[in-house]
């Protein structure tokens, strides 16, 4: 079974290589990409069942003895995220195939999109299954370099402008991460995560705090945690719709995943929970206030994305097994729902030629299916029962209430306010874009006058038809979001088990046993 683990990274990379060879044959590229991601999805599902029943898998690459070589480590958390990631990547790939076919690829040069997309996937999978800090760094770099290519795809002026911000910020966080790894190695003489957690207790608390802060800083930039989130709403909206959907769903979550490992495995004794709580609270509130002030759907969604990262940091700051489990469920929910919303907005952009909620109107009559596709994930993200957004938030608040300190109560109130404001921002967009009649007068405009002179993104007034495959991909994702609710029981239980597993931790000896070296 452990022989399957390296394939999670290998298959997308090989797929990318084949795609580059067949750069001019689009159909071959599509077939190879879909096949590679499907294979990873199947592999991920097999591994998830395996690690959930038989415990974590560790693989020593090239049979190096375990603390010395590269270790891949798959527990329930990693396997679950691999499965969710490959579902999202697959759905967005189908969406982009539809969009590329319809646009005749004016914006997206075929030859580079699919390879870069698969390499992005390989980087994400590598980060999830990395067993040592340096391999995590390499995974980050793989996905970042692919994301640099994807965000500047086509090299138009606006994409270069926003891409530059994204790239420079990412470079800074990468250098910070590398420096932090060097410091960890200098202090502990290892980069293996299990060994780090064993030796960390030997260090003085001050040193631990410095290392802890450096790693958190590097990851917080990637996860877009306030006050390091300024780059995200600037850079995401201008990329092509499928790219924005994948970035929004996955890239920030890789940062959050790294923070989970840092908090629960590396720094067990070192307590920065109060700092994390304050950061979580300000991320939630500041992010959602940004969303309320926007008039452009993609920007609204980017700000809600930042704000909901706050919930995950909140869950980690509580730092009980229950809270970590709830955080994992919330991450799964948020990856899927946020991607679905961005796909729905991609469809709106196609149908109406704009994503400005001031310009788009009358969509309810014009495209009822689109209305459903936007509405379900929107109220899901807002946290209305019975959807998974509600379940995830409830699990988080429940875990916080069990700790029961006054700070927890403040954070719960902050979380509820954020949830209501999310609902407000998304429903205002719903009212304006879907329910407003086409011949509406200026009455509504006066009520939202504060948005009045907000700039809208570049408008193409031409209305194009939506290819079936784009709608199908979005419908599929909406079904997945609903199934998160339907299967919430088993899924939440699995997440809670994962939370218990990673807070329990493993010892080096256990790791060697799992890799079959003893």
């Amino acid at each position, binding site marked *: 079974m452990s022989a399957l683990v390296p394939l999670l990274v290998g298959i997308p990379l090989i797929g990318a290589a084949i795609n580059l060879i067949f750069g001019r044959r689009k159909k071959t590229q599509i077939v190879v990409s879909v096949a590679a991601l499907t294979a990873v999805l199947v592999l991920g599902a097999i591994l998830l069942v395996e690690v959930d029943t038989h415990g974590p898998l560790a693989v020593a690459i090239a049979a190096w003895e375990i603390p*010395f070589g590269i270790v891949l480590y798959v527990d329930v958390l990693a396997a679950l995220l691999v499965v969710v990631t490959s579902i999202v990547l697959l759905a967005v790939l189908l969406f982009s195939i539809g969009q590329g076919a319809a646009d005749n690829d004016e914006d997206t040069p075929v030859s580079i999109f699919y390879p870069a997309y698969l390499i992005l996937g390989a980087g994400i999978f590598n980060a999830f299954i990395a067993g040592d800090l*340096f391999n995590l760094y*390499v995974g980050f*770099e793989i996905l970042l*370099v692919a994301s*640099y*290519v994807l965000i*500047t795809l086509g*090299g*138009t*002026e606006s994409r*270069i*402008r*926003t*891409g*530059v*911000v994204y*790239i*420079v910020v990412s*470079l*800074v966080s990468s*250098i910070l991460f*590398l*420096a932090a*790894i*060097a*410091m960890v*190695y*200098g202090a502990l003489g290892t*980069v293996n995560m299990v060994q780090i957690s064993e030796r960390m207790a030997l260090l003085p608390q001050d040193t631990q705090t410095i290392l802890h802060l450096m790693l958190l800083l590097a990851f917080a930039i990637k996860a877009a945690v306030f006050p390091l989130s300024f780059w995200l709403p*600037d850079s995401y909206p201008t990329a092509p719709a499928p790219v924005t959907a994948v970035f929004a769903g996955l890239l920030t979550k890789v940062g959050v995943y790294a923070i989970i490992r840092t908090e629960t495995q590396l720094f067990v004794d070192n307590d920065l929970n109060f700092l994390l709580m304050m950061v979580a609270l300000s991320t939630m509130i500041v992010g959602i206030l940004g969303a309320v*002030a926007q008039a*452009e759907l993609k*920007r609204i969604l980017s700000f809600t994305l930042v704000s909901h990262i706050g919930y995950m940091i909140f869950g980690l700051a509580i730092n009980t097994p229950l809270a970590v489990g709830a955080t994992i469920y919330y991450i799964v929910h948020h990856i899927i729902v946020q991607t679905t919303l961005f796909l729905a907005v991609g469809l709106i952009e196609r149908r109406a030629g704009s994503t400005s909620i001031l310009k788009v109107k009358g969509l309810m009559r014009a495209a009822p299916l689109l209305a459903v596709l936007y509405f379900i994930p929107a109220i899901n993200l807002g946290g209305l029962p019975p959807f998974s957004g509600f379940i995830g938030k409830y699990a988080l608040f429940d875990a916080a209430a069990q700790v029961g300190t006054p700070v927890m109560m403040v954070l719960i109130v902050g979380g509820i306010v954020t949830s209501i404001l999310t609902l407000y921002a998304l429903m205002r967009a719903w009212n304006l874009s879907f329910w407003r009649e086409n011949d509406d007068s200026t009455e509504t405009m006066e009520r939202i006058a504060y948005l009045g*002179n*907000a*700039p809208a993104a570049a408008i193409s007034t031409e209305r194009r038809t939506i290819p079936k495959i784009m709608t199908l991909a979005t419908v599929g994702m909406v079904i997945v979001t609903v199934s998160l609710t339907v299967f919430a029981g088993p899924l939440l239980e699995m997440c809670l088990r994962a939370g218990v597993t990673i807070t329990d931790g493993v010892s080096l000896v256990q790791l060697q046993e799992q890799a079959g070296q003893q």
Partner: protein
Amino acid sequence: MTISLVLVIVMAVLFACGVYAMLERSLTRVLIGFLLLGNAANLLLLVVMGVPGVAPFYDGGETDAADMSDALPQALTLTAIVITFGISAFLLALIYRSWQLGQADTVIDDADDVALRTRAADEPEDAMDEESRSDDEDVTTDFVGDVASPIRVLHQGDLSQLVDDAPVDRVAVRRTDDDEDSRETPDGDRP
């Protein structure tokens, strides 16, 4: 454990210069800053290696382990160098594209952010904004000497007001006689 003080000092200087260069708006300087920072991080990896010794393979593997260099930081450094190299190549391409499109390689402010700022300044009934505006009227910049808006955004068109002695990575002066423009532009083959 003794390590070379020179390495530590060089690393610190590289970090400082790299951060300074990365704070510039010019992309070329950002690239230089990134290269310096990358090298500084690599030096840091070498510093944490500890006392340098002989190569692990030296003398047919009969060397005492205490005399060997720690090989792992070297492996990490090599990987980091390769990554930095690849990203620098991408950045160079990006800078060239940016130059092709706008004849400038500076980082430009987000259009929506600029609009948000002007919107905030245009609403006099808001007490908080009024306060900030009255403050701003006293503010002058060292460079221009005139009344500044909340944040002065320098675009290419503002270059005549901008006094900057350092060599700039843009077309320095917009000439009125167009004859020599083709010599200034690196991509003369563009249609």
